[in-house]
């Protein structure tokens, strides 16, 4: 039976506006990207979309070795990002790098370390939280311990001091000196501080409250909230005062805020005891917002970044990849999730609907990336007819990966990690407790066995990527274990517990 696709245009209610007109034009472009064979052919091979891995690898290799053309001058202050996007795309595609490339990359990144801590967007530029994340993650991929390996040349003390120097009274952080507050910067800071094992209660004070204040009435998060009305005369913070969100709910900020929230939980668990009220976010409305960002069948199931905006390949990661974080926060037990309305739709993708999976449509998201986001000359794009760039290439691939695999927090793994730590000593103090919790919190994310799904078949398989860091699980474990001075217990796949047959 051939696949039934109902491609209903988004209703305009006979009341068009600039938004609906742009939407309709985009739908016309997107729906033509579904190969016509899908409607009629009985030859399954013709139906399956192919991830053009070789073309994308050539595109990436060109960027890495030959460099970027001069139109990338706008990225001059984002040089470690160009490197991270390219390297991580290689990792997701399952391609390792040779030692020479690794060494050259390590040297390039180390040239960005600022004398006063943190990393800059380019040599001689000021340190900034965003390139600091990109640099540390690039080093997670290419670096190693020891002389010239990159990891031991990171000045953790100065990095911590740099972070503290950006701290604001409302618990937020400037992204750089004299610069703005932005939840993307906070996400970058928390990833780096977690990896480098430099979390302290002083660093994190007020940050959970700040993140919570960035959630808008729509359920997603914005880039910052207004602090002015919450400042008392003595510069302390009136926790009851309003801190209205500046800007609407947005995919990039929602990912960063949600991942930050997950990274802050060890601190919340350890230090919010007794009288301090635990800050909360509305996880149900967050999940509702995320799933509503997925476009309809006529948009091929790609994700949007804001209500009533257009789908864009990069939100495959920022929003699609955020779904699993929201599910984790809600404690959704998907393994026991019994589909209530299961109907065999005669899909060509056998078994799609009889395995429990995420709360968004994984299959449709894969189709968006495969059909709409691949450029015929290599590299991936926002949407046709745009040209590829390093940023969209990585985030389309990461989004595709997050729709193929389920990487979820495993309580078993968490217990293993803690047991391993606890064989030596009991927690000395709260800081020690925080470090243990942070360590096991991030490394407990494991790929769930038997729940991978590949549109187009296993030839399209990508490596799984850590939902918080966007590094492979292997790269995440390597660098985290190094900075916590720990050996790791052998990793086991998380087996789905209590399957439906029981």
């Amino acid at each position, binding site marked *: 039976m051939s696949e039934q696709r109902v491609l209903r245009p988004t209703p305009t209610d006979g009341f068009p506006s*600039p938004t609906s007109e742009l939407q309709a034009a985009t739908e016309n472009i997107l729906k033509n990207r579904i190969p016509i064979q899908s409607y009629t052919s009985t030859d399954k091979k013709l139906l399956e979309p192919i991830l053009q891995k070789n073309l994308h690898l050539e595109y990436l290799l060109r960027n890495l070795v030959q460099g970027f053309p001069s139109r990338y001058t706008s990225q001059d202050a984002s040089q470690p990002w160009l490197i991270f996007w390219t390297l991580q795309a290689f990792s997701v595609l399952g391609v390792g790098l040779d030692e020479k490339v690794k060494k050259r990359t390590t040297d390039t990144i180390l040239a960005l370390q600022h004398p006063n801590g943190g990393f800059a967007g380019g040599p*001689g530029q000021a340190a900034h939280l965003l390139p600091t994340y990109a640099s540390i993650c690039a080093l997670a991929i290419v670096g190693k311990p020891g002389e010239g390996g990159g990891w031991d040349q990171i000045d953790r003390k100065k990095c911590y001091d740099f972070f503290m120097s950006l701290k604001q009274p409302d618990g937020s952080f400037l992204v750089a000196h004299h610069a703005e507050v932005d939840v993307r910067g906070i996400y970058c800071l928390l990833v780096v501080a977690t990896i480098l094992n430099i979390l302290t209660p002083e660093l994190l004070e007020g940050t959970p409250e700040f993140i919570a204040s960035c959630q808008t009435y729509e359920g997603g998060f914005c880039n910052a909230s207004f602090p002015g009305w919450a400042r008392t005369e003595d510069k302390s913070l009136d926790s009851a005062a309003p801190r209205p969100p500046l800007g609407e709910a947005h995919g990039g900020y929602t990912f960063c805020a949600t991942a930050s929230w997950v990274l802050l939980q060890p601190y919340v668990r350890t230090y919010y005891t007794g009288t301090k009220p635990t800050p909360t976010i509305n996880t149900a409305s967050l999940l509702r917002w995320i799933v509503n960002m997925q476009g309809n069948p006529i948009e091929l199931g790609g994700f949007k970044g804001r209500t*009533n905006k257009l789908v864009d390949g990069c939100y495959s990661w920022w929003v699609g990849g955020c779904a699993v974080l929201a599910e984790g926060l809600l404690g959704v037990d998907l393994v026991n999730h019994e589909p209530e309305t299961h109907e065999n739709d005669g899909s060509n993708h056998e078994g799609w609907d009889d395995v429990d999976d995420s709360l968004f449509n994984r299959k449709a998201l894969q189709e968006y990336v495969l059909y709409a986001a691949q450029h015929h000359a290599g590299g991936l794009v926002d949407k046709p007819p745009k040209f590829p760039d390093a940023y969209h290439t990585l985030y389309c691939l990461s989004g595709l990966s997050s729709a193929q695999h389920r990487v979820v927090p495993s309580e078993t793994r968490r217990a293993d990690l803690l047991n391993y730590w606890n064989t030596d000593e009991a927690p000395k103090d709260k800081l020690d407790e925080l470090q243990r919790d942070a360590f096991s919190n991030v490394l407990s994310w494991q790929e769930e066995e038997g729940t991978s799904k590949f549109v187009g078949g296993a030839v399209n398989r990508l490596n799984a990527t850590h939902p918080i860091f966007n590094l492979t699980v292997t790269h995440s474990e390597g660098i985290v274990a190094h900075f916590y001075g720990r050996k790791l217990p052998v990793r086991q796949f998380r087996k789905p517990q209590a399957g439906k047959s029981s």
Partner: protein
Amino acid sequence: MSHILDDDEGPKLYSERQDWADVTPIPQYEGVRPIAPIFYTPEYTDATDYFRGIVRTGEKSQRILELTEAIIRMNPAHYSAWQSPLDVELKLMDGIAIEFLKTYQVWHHRRLILTALHDSSSTSPPPTSAPTSARDAAKSELDFITRALLTDTKNYHTWSYRQWLLAFFDLEELWAGELAYVERLLQEDVRNNSAWHHRFFVVFGRVKRGGEVGELQDVLKRELAYTKDQIALAPNNPSAWNYLRGTLEYTNTPFSSLETFVQLYILEKAPELDVLDLENPPPGPGAQLPCVASLEFYADILEKRGEKENIEKATAIWKSLANEHDTMRKKYWEYRIKGALTNTNS
């Protein structure tokens, strides 16, 4: 590519200029062959080599402004170049901002200047002759933002900056025109979510600050009436429904208070009404019903009401969303069913 060499009229490279001869330019990478390099234009490489030169010496003179402006015009995202002295005139920046609206640095820099103006005028009385007292600067800045939004009605940073400006100066005269402004924008495009968010900010940001409970009730009435009218025009508009839900949640108003209204939108054809009920505007003539948001809303009312019969009705709606009206979110609607059943069983 070498057109700059013999061109007397074009700008010279810094390396050719006598007045910069005292600065030692610093190449980007010393002793490192960088991976993934960018191929800059010679002008950009030249300017940034000199920028690194003065960063190293720590020079703080006027000529830095010229250099940083040149760099910013070639690359507005060069955040380090923006960190130079703040005595750049706003006027000089207007041109740059319109050209590079998508860049954070532009808006943030304007914000720093306005903050400085505000701080200096609050510690000493504003000079009477100055055209740029903080108040005037804020007003003309709001006009400037309005002009910028004309060309890009959903620009994230511009909207975020407008909200910051309103809250930071917190002047009645600034807030006064905002609601009318939002309504103008929504008249042009009822689906502009940035405008809807701005409405929420203007309405509830302020009420929350000093609002009395009585006042809040009036505001709520006004907002519900306005939003229902916008939904009637175009029922399949998630921005308006999200605003409606947000308003109810913010004011702790039960969704069930809108049951009559919502029921007009959950059927395939709106019921014929004998009398026009202004509180419950019916869907417009072109409305494509039922709309997903109304079904979701009605199921939320039923779920909240509890009891087996209501949950069964809600479940039927969720199933119709999963299998017919909103198939992309099938898994989500199934999750809602499971959640409701778990709650009633326990």
